[in-house]
């Protein structure tokens, strides 16, 4: 492939840039995504060897951008591994003031009390997720409910326990005690 052909393809790409971006924005529904995809397309155009007989370079390039977008979607849809999730969740820890970590210990007794106050099914769902690490889909099947319902139950359980623990702190020290500075 000659230098000449390569830069011709690039020329077409650069000339069509704004049009491509507008079309991609519409197709993908996101400015950020459209920009990322276009950038990636540019890199590939710069590197690649176009077939000798491309009739409609514009259409060819746009199809390339769409393929890149589809690959990106597939990549994004990949599930995180357990390790990746652990690391991800721990990134929040790094920025915590060590003194505050000690001060904010959860009172296990109070939490135990809160757990006994949960509706039986809600507590079972909570423990299936927390203790057994059962995925939501399986929990949903086990209980004959939707995964959305499983999420709602888990959030409700967490909210309830958090509320109860906060109330306990306030009871002991008075209003304003539970609030962080």
């Amino acid at each position, binding site marked *: 492939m000659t230098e000449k052909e390569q830069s011709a393809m690039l020329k077409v790409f650069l000339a069509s840039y704004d049009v491509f971006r507008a079309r991609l924005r519409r197709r993908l529904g996101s400015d950020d995504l459209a920009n990322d995809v276009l950038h990636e397309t540019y890199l590939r155009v710069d590197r690649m060897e176009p077939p000798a007989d491309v009739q409609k370079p514009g259409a060819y390039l746009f199809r390339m951008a769409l393929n890149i977008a589809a690959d990106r979607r597939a990549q*994004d*849809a990949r599930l*995180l591994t357990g390790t990746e999730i652990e690391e991800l*969740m721990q990134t*929040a820890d790094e920025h915590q003031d060590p003194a505050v970590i000690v001060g904010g210990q959860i009172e296990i007794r109070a939490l135990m009390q809160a757990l006994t106050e949960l509706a039986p099914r809600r*507590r079972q769902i909570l423990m299936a997720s927390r203790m057994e690490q059962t995925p939501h889909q399986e929990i949903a099947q086990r209980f*004959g409910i939707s995964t959305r319902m499983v*999420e709602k139950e888990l959030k409700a359980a*967490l*909210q309830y326990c958090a509320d109860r623990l906060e109330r306990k702190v306030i009871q002991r020290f008075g209003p304003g005690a539970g609030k962080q500075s």
Partner: protein
Amino acid sequence: MSISASESASATANQLREEAFHWLVRLTSGHATHADAEAFRRWSAQSSEHARAFFLARQLWQAMAPAEQKLRQEQAAKVVSHPRRFGRRAFLGGAIAASVAVLVARPSLLDGWPMGADFHTGVGEQRHVDLTQGVVLELNTQTRISQRSEALGDAAIEVLSGEVEIQASTALRVLAGNGELFADGARFNVRATEGSVCVTCLEGRLQLKHQGRRVSLEQGRQLTYTAQRQGQLTSFDTQQVMAWRQQLLVFNDAPLASVIDEINRYRPGMIVLMNAELGRRKVQARFSLAQLANVAVLIRDAYGATITELPGGVVLVS
């Protein structure tokens, strides 16, 4: 209307807490994707308050496990002084049987009270357990199983209550009621309800030791025994006995009263039959376990019964 500074601050804090819980639940769902990771990073990076809200949410989530463990330990210690023998003593009759009957009639009390069981399921719950190499258990609703292995190489469990399908590719002892089963290369169903144990041999062969007698169960044979007596070996309808494994309940010409009893095992709350005559009507039906919440309506439509729905999933049928 004006909101004080501290009120709006706590409103924001509540909002952040809710969002943090959302992310926690999403990331622990078992189907979190790379796109979720990206979105979470963006959310968390918005401010140090965001990161802190998530940190606290995760702290609470983590504390749930030790809290639940402690609860279970304390309940188990509270119930009887000899948890090892509880299931058998109750089965053999005596004063404890009365209290067991009360507990069984109010199934919700048992949820979260394993009472010395190593594996248990709640109402309507089913669970898969890989016990050891070569032994797989499928627990049905409201089932409690305990480990009873006494030494290395001795695999043994006790079925305290409920129903379990056991696949024993290697040697396994199963205690149920006052009987003891020996399996090695067998697949079988054990159902222990108040007062009796029903053993169904699906594949392979089993040995039962009970009341000083030894009985062999071949594939295709079923035996029921109580504390004092053993029934005869009978054949069985596999589809009906094992339908629960496909999340189905199958009834072939069963009286409505026993159909309702069976449904209650899986269904939170309770269906109460007020009309004995209605209870004697024969039922031919297949229910999916997922449909049981509203099964009373099906009964009403099929038999012209009257149903009264009360809170907590209690339904009166007359």
